[in-house]
């Protein structure tokens, strides 16, 4: 297959459009002056400032707590759900429910959850963020694991039963290893999503700064103005996400191209 010169140019410009803003941001985070106008030399000063700022460290810790717990819950629940859905009759109503969290505008889910918690008089905090994050994390784990479920030869499950294995043994020794790449990829993706999620966390964190997450901290800083610290933090956060996503892709080759 050949690619015309026009197409090639478009593709190059398209990648430039995607990556130039990110690369500029990363470059500026190492600029001593910290300003976009002039390059005054390489410096790690802004990273140093970041790691000594208490609110940022605290926000990072909160983010990790939320992401780890919601990922573990969503991975277990979502994997079971995916297996359950793929081993029963197809239902478009069920598909719609499982697809909904991915497509409902964040702001709508955020206010719905806020209303729900306040209706039940639930005190807001990290726990309410976790409960909320599990909702969309489940949807992503289900989507990835279902793709995996569809892409292997289901007769291996019957073969296992035929060779004398109980349903539990078949689940543990045949089904789980077969879908493991999808489960791992789904977990990594939901971790990434949870680390980056802002609006729902913002609405369900409650007043006060005790349950501020990193994206909430970033949002506050951006509203305040362009600062060199944001560039440094953005660089770190982005590199973490990129690494996680690339590892997820390694785990399950079809995770993005299904």
């Amino acid at each position, binding site marked *: *297959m*050949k*690619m015309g010169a026009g*197409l*090639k140019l*478009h*593709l190059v410009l*398209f*990648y430039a459009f*995607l990556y*130039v*803003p990110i690369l500029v941001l990363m470059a*500026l985070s190492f600029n001593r002056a910290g300003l*976009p106008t002039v390059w005054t030399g390489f410096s790690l000063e802004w990273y140093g400032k970041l790691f000594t700022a208490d609110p940022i460290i605290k926000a990072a810790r909160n983010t990790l707590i939320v992401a780890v717990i919601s990922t573990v819950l969503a991975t277990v629940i*979502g994997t*079971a759900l995916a297996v*359950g*859905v793929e*081993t029963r009759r197809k239902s478009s109503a069920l598909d719609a*429910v*499982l697809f909904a*969290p991915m*497509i*409902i*505008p*964040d*702001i*709508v*889910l955020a*206010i*719905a*959850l806020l*209303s*729900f918690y306040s209706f039940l008089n639930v005190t807001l905090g990290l726990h309410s963020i976790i*409960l*909320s994050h*599990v*909702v969309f994390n*489940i949807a992503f784990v289900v989507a990835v694991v279902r793709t995996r479920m569809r892409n292997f030869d289901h007769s291996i499950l019957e073969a296992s039963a035929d060779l004398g294995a109980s349903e539990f043994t078949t689940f543990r020794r045949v089904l789980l290893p077969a879908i493991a790449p999808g489960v791992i990829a789904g977990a990594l*993706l939901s971790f990434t999503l949870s680390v*980056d999620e*802002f*609006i729902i966390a913002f*609405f369900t964190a409650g007043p006060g700064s005790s349950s501020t997450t990193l*994206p909430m901290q*970033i*949002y506050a800083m*951006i509203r305040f103005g*362009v600062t060199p610290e944001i560039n440094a933090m*953005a660089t770190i*956060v*982005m590199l973490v*996400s*990129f690494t996680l*996503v690339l590892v997820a*892709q390694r785990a399950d*080759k079809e995770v*993005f*191209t*299904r």
Partner: protein
Amino acid sequence: MRNTLKSVILLAPGLGWLALFMVIPCALIFTYAFFERGVYGGIDYIFTFENFQRAADPLYLGIFLRSAKIAGLATLFAILLAYPAAYAITRAPQRYQTALLIFVILPFWSNYLIRTYAWIVMLNREGLINQSLIGLGVTSEPLPLLYNNFAVIVGLVYNYTPFVVLAIYSSLNRINRETIEASEDLGAPGFTTFRRVILPQTITGVAAGGVFVFVLSIGNFITPDLLGGGRLQMVGNLIYDQFLSARDWPFGAALSMFLIAVMMALLFTQAVLTNRAAGEGRAS
């Protein structure tokens, strides 16, 4: 009987979770939309249609229309950018295609706030774009690129185009290559082949990507908040305002119902189109 039990054990926790933390909360704000606002910002449980009447007020209707216009333009530009990119990737050597796709989708999985912030850095008066334009002598004064609808559209296109590339790529990939060769063999020039053979076979991918961009754009809150001018840019900001500033939850709930209705209508149309395309595929 046993299978039913197994199904229940697998499905119950997940469906229960989604019911409790998605379906019920959404149902709750649906009912809120029919009640009156309390004096101190709570809910007075008195049935009313007033919230919906207010949403139809020219002031708010204007915001709705502006949101739809911005989302529509973002969708259009995203498709115009994504289609040739996706097409170019299908034409690249097979062994590079996965890598090319991963690099399209990679930014999509990084922090949305940061991706939007990157455009504040790009578009501001001292940003790379203004610097380059001045350097090239195109303009002597920095252009006002930031805090307007242009910046919002750029931000939305930037954030959502990767998904459109993916959707179009996967539908392009499903085309039988020989239909393209057949068209060329029958004497069709390149663009005719594209218009009459390739585009009709990929229209469902375009629709899926387009609906995705439009739905996420019209309900967006962060991009207009950070890149747009004025306080009440789009529906998302209006809803935000009702909940966190104005403390008029019933009205905010009514506005979200509007948003959900638009979203469902689009998804339904898309599903119908996709089904019809699939039906035609089977018939031929």
